[in-house]
């Protein structure tokens, strides 16, 4: 994850929008394809809000895959990438439970993938001390329990070079990985009409046209 000036500039605008439209125990969702900068944007927004005295916690939906990180690829190949890659790979029941816990300021337990061991740890957090939640992930804006939806328009084809290596710098691009990104692309783009704010390919922020 590398936060650059463009993330910070977009984050400033979005943070100002959030503050102007502030709600009690607000949930903001950010969606976009792999490599579009969702985590960077969520991180940058949370940092700005913190300076304003607002405790905003990022929540990454990638922690909620129903299949284990080490078995996912194999599982997808076995069932057919075009059949299974999409929303239903996430444990929405668990995500909605955690969102509901946040709304009610409860203590909550959530999955948390350790990116070194690739094990799924459990994280317990006290939402009572958190003011806002920034849910970030491919399909995060699909959730109905969200106050503001941000969509990043960059597609995987425009961030191609980012996908040629995995988190450990190992070359991983093969047909299956491209097919996965292509399927994710379809599923993510289908959610775009739900967005309130759009982040363009140049990382400018625009209000979505009222449909």
């Amino acid at each position, binding site marked *: 994850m590398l936060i650059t000036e463009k993330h910070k500039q977009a984050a400033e605008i979005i943070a100002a929008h959030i503050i102007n439209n502030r709600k009690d125990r607000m949930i903001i969702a950010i969606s976009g394809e792999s490599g579009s900068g969702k985590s960077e944007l969520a991180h940058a927004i949370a940092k700005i809000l913190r300076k304003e005295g607002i405790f905003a916690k990022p929540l990454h939906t990638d922690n909620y895959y129903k299949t284990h990180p080490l078995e996912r690829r194999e599982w997808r190949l076995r069932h057919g990438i075009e059949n299974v890659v999409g929303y239903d790979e996430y444990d929405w029941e668990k995500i909605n439970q955690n969102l509901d816990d946040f709304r009610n300021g409860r203590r909550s337990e959530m999955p948390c993938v350790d990116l*070194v061991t690739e*094990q799924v740890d459990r994280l317990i957090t*006290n939402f009572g*001390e*958190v003011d806002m939640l920034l849910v970030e992930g491919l399909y995060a804006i699909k959730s109905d329990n969200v106050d503001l939806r941000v969509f990043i328009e960059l597609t995987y084809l425009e961030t191609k070079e980012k996908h040629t290596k995995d988190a*450990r710098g190992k070359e991983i691009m093969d047909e299956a990985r491209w097919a996965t990104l292509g399927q994710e692309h379809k599923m993510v783009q289908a959610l775009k009409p739900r967005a309130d704010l759009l982040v363009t390919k140049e990382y400018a922020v625009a209000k979505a046209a009222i449909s």
Partner: protein
Amino acid sequence: MLHDLITITPQHESSAKMVFDKVLELRNGNPRGKMIITISGEVGSGKSTISIVLGRLLTNQGIRAKIIDLDDFYKIPPLERRAWREKHGLQSIGYEEYDWKKVYQNISHFLQNKVCSMPCVDLITNHVDELITDYKGVDLLIINGLYSLKIKEADLKVFIEQSYDKTIEYQHYSLKEKLDSYRLKVLQREHEVVNSLKGLADFFIDFESSLYHL
């Protein structure tokens, strides 16, 4: 530690590789399997980044390494720490600030392949969450932190050399904490304590000069 931002440089990679080679060498002579490595050094010396690069090198070899960061184990949570330190004086800064009971509970649960809980600081909110992990199947525990050299049980104790000037320089670039006169006193005190422990290390990395090996 949640939401830490790391930037991996070639120096981190070459330093991690040196530790990695040493770990493989030790594993060959140690069929017991489970090993503990501590990584110490001053603030900004690259402890956590080197731990992550090392962890990934090991994972690629099929050796599962769990990283624990002693910054998560302070008895006084981040949002209250400065006020606590100001009240108790600079002498209160040091390894007694860690909750060693929790650190050792993790070490023993790791050795016994058990499920264990640990504190986990969210670096955005500065709140302390609780992380529950299963040490079953974890081969190696990498413990990084200012005073990790105090852990006698470690099979390898790494110290990353860094001049005090560099520590101060890093603070100017780091967005983590504001550098004011009090913070400078804290850094000076931590520098003294860390250096008093340096003799306990058995593997030294000169981070700055490793640049020249590349």
